[in-house]
């Protein structure tokens, strides 16, 4: 008989022939192998990043050290985490990650200021106010926005947002001549592309709020405004937060749009019209050049990649935690 426990009590699984049973067990093992491969992918990412980043800091990969390679301190952790100049490919190299980390965080925060209010308002409108007809048109439109490749957003930034929207405004208001790239353009374009993420997940959370709660508030004389802000949003808050975290995580890892919008100049600046460089843009600039394996530029890719991976990992774990809370509440 079958060795596994029957998931549906009361229904006896057919035994089939011995060969059928063996085929079933074989299939189970092969399919488990497929699922295990996904865990292996995560481990491989972590291992490859860590192993190659080691050569950036210690002069040899961990795997090479096991084979007896000597280590030498090339880049110290102090320089990497506190240095304020980033130029590993320069004649006088500098390895401080702060300028490109600043670039990534500035774009992420700026994008959040666009996507969070607009995405939440869109979700509230679709969930609480819109007629079914409007809803049927608005939701697929936002899905199209979510499905457009990031390279197209990058093109939109370099061909429209920066020269047509930002350029003339900066010139008229502040007399600043905006170049091909600007931090503000990066913030805007990443903000726009993460709106659908905030709106669709927040809307799901708002839809999951039981109507009883709304009706209870209406019975007390609340208006739709009160119900939306004082009942629906607080009740859906963990789902809404999960959507924010997902959008922020996406903004941190965003590459093509930000590269074509914000540029390749690693500096810490308070001027949104300046060109900056994010961590991902640095990786693209290295990929465009032909940095040979073993050079410090090649190794720096993995150190930056590891920092990026860890940042998004923290965001993903937070998102997972919020999502689980939101599922517990009304399901």
């Amino acid at each position: 008989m079958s060795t596994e426990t029957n998931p549906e009590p009361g229904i006896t699984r057919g035994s089939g022939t011995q060969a059928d049973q063996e085929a079933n067990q074989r299939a189970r093992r092969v399919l488990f192998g497929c699922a295990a491969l996904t865990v292996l992918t995560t481990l491989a990412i972590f291992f490859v990043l860590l192993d190659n980043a080691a050569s950036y800091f210690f002069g040899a990969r961990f795997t090479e050290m096991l084979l007896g390679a000597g280590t030498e301190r090339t880049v110290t952790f102090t320089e990497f985490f506190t240095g304020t100049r980033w130029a590993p490919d320069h004649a006088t190299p500098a390895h401080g990650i702060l300028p490109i980390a600043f670039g990534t965080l500035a774009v992420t925060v700026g994008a959040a200021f666009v996507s969070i209010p607009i995405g939440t308002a869109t979700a509230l409108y679709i969930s609480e106010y819109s007629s079914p007809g409007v809803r049927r048109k608005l939701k697929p439109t936002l899905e199209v926005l979510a499905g457009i490749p990031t390279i197209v957003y990058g093109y939109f930034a370099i061909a429209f947002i920066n020269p047509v929207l930002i350029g003339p405004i900066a010139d008229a208001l502040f007399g600043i001549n905006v170049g091909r790239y600007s931090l503000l353009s990066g913030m805007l374009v990443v903000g726009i592309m993460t709106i659908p993420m905030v709106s669709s997940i927040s809307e799901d959370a708002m839809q999951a709020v039981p109507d009883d709660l709304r009706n209870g508030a209406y019975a007390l004389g609340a208006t739709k405004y009160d119900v939306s802000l004082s009942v629906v949003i607080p009740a859906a808050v963990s789902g809404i937060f999960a959507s924010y975290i997902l959008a922020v995580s996406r903004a941190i890892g965003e590459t093509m749009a930000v590269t074509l919008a914000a540029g390749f100049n690693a500096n810490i600046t308070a001027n949104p019209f300046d060109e900056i460089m994010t961590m991902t843009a640095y990786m693209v600039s290295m990929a465009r050049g032909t940095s040979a394996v073993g050079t410090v530029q090649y190794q720096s890719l993995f150190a930056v990649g590891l920092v990026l991976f860890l940042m998004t990992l923290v965001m993903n774990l937070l998102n997972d935690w919020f999502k689980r809370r939101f599922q517990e509440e009304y399901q």
Partner: protein
Amino acid sequence: MSTQTDELFGDVDLGWEHLKNRLFLGLIFAASMFGVVMLALLLLDILTDFYVGLTEFNINLVDFLTRSGSRREELAGFQGAIIASVMLVIVTAFLSFFIGVGSAIYLEEYAPKNRLTRLIEANLANLAGVPSIVYGLLALAAFRNGIGLGPIVLVGAIALALLVMPIIIVASQEALRAVPDGVRNGSYATGATKWQTIRRVVLPAAIPGILTGTILALARAIGETAPLLMVGALFVNRVPYGPFDRYSAMPTQIYAWAAEPSQHFIHLAAVGIVVLLTIMLCMNGVAIYLRNKYETEV
């Protein structure tokens, strides 16, 4: 009576309440139109640049689609990139479909409710959130340089396959979950084993949903740029001979053009984007057709 209600609701200013509701509705309606307006601007900008490219920069669409590419702007074409992207998607589909669907079947049909299963599920959610450029780094270090395959189509396809795997798995899980349990129990009642039930009953019922999800995932893969850039799919101006040849795909070619200062190249990028979006639109159309065709049958 009336004095009582006056006292009870004396602090409620109905006029202000009305105004507040109106203003709020106006505000969130305007906000939800922002996304729509931006989408319209984006499409308008690309179509305008496409049109200007064809008229003012004399980009001939037939030449564009049949030339393999060039460093010289007036000779540049997209054929090599289109064929490379089609090749990439086919290899990606081959690499990700069976493993993805297999994982979904395991998780939905076989997996016991234990810590290992929870770990696999949580890991899947995490993988879906890993930035695409990181998959590029993995393929760069492990496959391009690690085992020395070089910047070939296969390496790009491995990166894309790993990237779309979580999407295919989640879509397949949903398709499998949509098959009613009664169908499974009917099969068990005839004496079938679990695997026979999955292969002959559950999978045939779920396959339209699985295919829809897979095509949508592949439509996403064809537009992915960052992982391909990391493994070096750039600056190749010819049609790849096969999956072991060097290449430049549609999105990376668009990036190379868009990053050039010359206006001619910018407009070449716009024409390339129109081709890319058209192909993606067709793939999405096929997926929606499949979904609508089989939706009523299950």
